[in-house]
Structure formats: C-alpha cells, structure tokens
C-alpha cells in the first residue's frame, strides 16, 4: 500500500479486528436468543412452550396475556426483577396475569428450596402472594443464613399469619411434591436461567427495566 503512512497498516488491522469481533459477538448473542431450527440449541430451548398445570396465578383470570415466570427466591436477579413484575400487574390490571412457577437452583442457592416451601406453606394459610413478596423483598435477610426458617416465621408473622404453623407445615410432603412438579415443568421447558419468562407460552427475554417490560407487553397486546 504505497504512500500510506507507516502507522496506518496496524490501525487498519485493529479496526478490522474489532469490527470482526463485534460481528461475532452480535451473531453469538442473537444465536442464543433466536435459535436456528437446525441447531442443537433449538431443540434444547424451544421458543414456544406449553406449560401444563401448576403455578400460582396473580391478577385477573380473564387477562389476555399470561406472563409465566420460572423463578428462584434466592436468586438475586429474580429479586431484582420482582418489583418490575409487580409494576406490570399494577399497570395492566385487566390485560396481564402472572403465573409463577418454582425453579429453585439448589446447587448455587441452598436456601431457595426452603423459601419455595415457606411461600407454599403461606399459601396453605391463604397468603401465598403476600409471602412471595416478603420473601423477595427481604431476600438479603435470609439468603445466607444456615437456617432461614426463623426468618420465614418472622416474615409470616409480619404478613399476618402464624409463623410457627408455617414452619411446621412447610416440610409437608404435599408442598415438597408441588415444588418438585414445578421443577419438572421447568426442566421440560428447558429453563437455562432464572428468571425465565414466557408470554402466552412464548419464551421472552426482558431487560431489567420497566420500559422494556412495558414495550414487550404493549407489543404483545397489539399483536
């Protein structure tokens, strides 16, 4: 390349390399969001999943959109998403209902299964969603405790139910079976990360922001 200043060659190589890297990164990120039908990923993480049974529903039964969440009470990102999910239900009271399924990742969140049991036990006393909110909102208070049960009892008392009864009932085989069944549903739906959302059965990536939640919901409502 005659007449080109000496430093231009490396500069061109650097710009090209960064450009190729950017292309590769965009390709890889899209690849995992929108799996190609021919790829192995596509068969492992189907975009449309029918989740049969289970789950707890919050919001209007008649709402046209069902936001299914597979979540883990000890997962910090699920805790971070929680206020946005609540806000969605406040903002779209007749349009969106939440269906929450347990997917505790016990290998990295040792108290997550106990938390799911505590929320289910609160449900037995008719206060599932109050406990669901409390467990997320006070996640940092129990997440690292060797025994989180006393904190769950305190949270139960705080929402107006009997904490002692909650601790006594949370280890019941029925509750445990309900959570295990939800985990099985999550495995069938090929959950790779928590929280994972589905809107009317379609796996949906939503950014941790109210704007993105609103954008996704509005787009689905106008579909």
């Amino acid at each position, binding site marked *: 390349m005659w007449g080109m200043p000496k430093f231009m060659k490396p500069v061109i190589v650097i710009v090209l390399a960064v450009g190729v*890297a950017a292309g*590769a990164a965009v390709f890889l990120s899209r690849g995992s969001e929108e799996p190609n039908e021919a790829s192995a990923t596509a068969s492992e993480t189907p975009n449309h999943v029918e989740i049969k049974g289970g789950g707890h529903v919050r919001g209007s039964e008649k709402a046209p959109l069902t936001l299914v969440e597979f979540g883990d009470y000890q997962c910090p990102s699920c805790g971070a998403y929680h206020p946005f999910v609540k806000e969605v239900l406040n903002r779209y009271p007749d349009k969106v209902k939440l269906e929450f399924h347990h997917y505790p990742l016990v290998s990295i969140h040792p108290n997550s299964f106990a938390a799911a049991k505590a929320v289910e036990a609160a449900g037995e006393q008719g206060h599932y969603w109050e406990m669901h909110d409390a467990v997320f909102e006070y996640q940092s208070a129990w997440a690292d405790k060797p025994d989180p049960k006393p904190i769950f009892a305190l949270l139960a008392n705080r929402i107006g139910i009997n904490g002692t009864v909650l601790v006594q009932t949370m280890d019941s085989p029925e509750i445990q079976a309900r959570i295990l069944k939800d985990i099985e549903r999550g495995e069938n739906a090929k959950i790779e990360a928590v929280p994972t959302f589905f809107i009317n059965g379609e796996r949906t990536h939503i950014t941790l922001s109210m704007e993105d939640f609103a954008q996704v919901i509005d787009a689905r409502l106008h579909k």
Partner: protein
Amino acid sequence: MKIRPVVIALLAFTGTVDALYLSIKRNAGPIPCHITRGCTDVLTSKYSTVAGIPLSAIGLAFYITILSLAVFTIFEEPNHPLTRTLAGIFYISGLALVVSALLVGVQAFILKAYCEYCLLSAALVLSIFLASPHPVRNKPPE
C-alpha cells in the same frame, strides 16, 4: 515471525468477542450458562459495575488496548527495540490479572455462583500475562 505478539493479539481478539458479547447480553434479560450455573446472578450482582460502569465495558477497553499494542508490535521493524509496547502489555495485563483474581474470588466466596464468560476472561488475562515478555529480563541490547 513474532510469535508472542501474534498469540497475544489472538487472545485479545477472543477477549474482545467475549466482552462485547457480555455487553450486549447484559442488557438483554437473563444470561444462560452452558457450563457453570449462575451467570445472571454474577452479571447482575452489585459487583458487576464499578462507579456505574459495567465490568464488561472495562474489560472491552482492556482487550482493545492489548489488541492494539500487540498489532503495533507485529508491524514494528524486526530490529526495533519494542520495549514500550511490550512493557505496556506486561504491566497492563499484570494489573488486569490482579483484578481478575479478585473477581474470581468474588464469584467463589461471596456470590457462590460462577459465570463461564467471566472465567474465560480470567483465563485469557492470565494467558496474555504469561505470553507477554518481562520488560526487564527481555530488554534488548543497547
């Protein structure tokens, strides 16, 4: 053939792809792990930013700097002393290695969750550091 700068450039290129991928995925919902478990936990934790700047963006700046220094070294004249660019790679990657070690520690002992993309980055930083010649021991003759 200047093997070391070529190897460093390839490692930095891989790191650039990794950091760019994380920068894109960071704002696109939960990040799936394929080998480890807890990518989203690590990447949305309070340790994933410094003064509001995502670590993936800082990592990207690091890899582009190392890539640039390595490419400039490749294009230097064969007898050029190369001391500045190589010393730059050695010291910058040394500093990055300390930061990487701290971040692996945060994953292991505080978050108790691992992000495979972050572990890959730590391995790349270590490899770049090991591939960069020590500026004093490899000082060219006067």
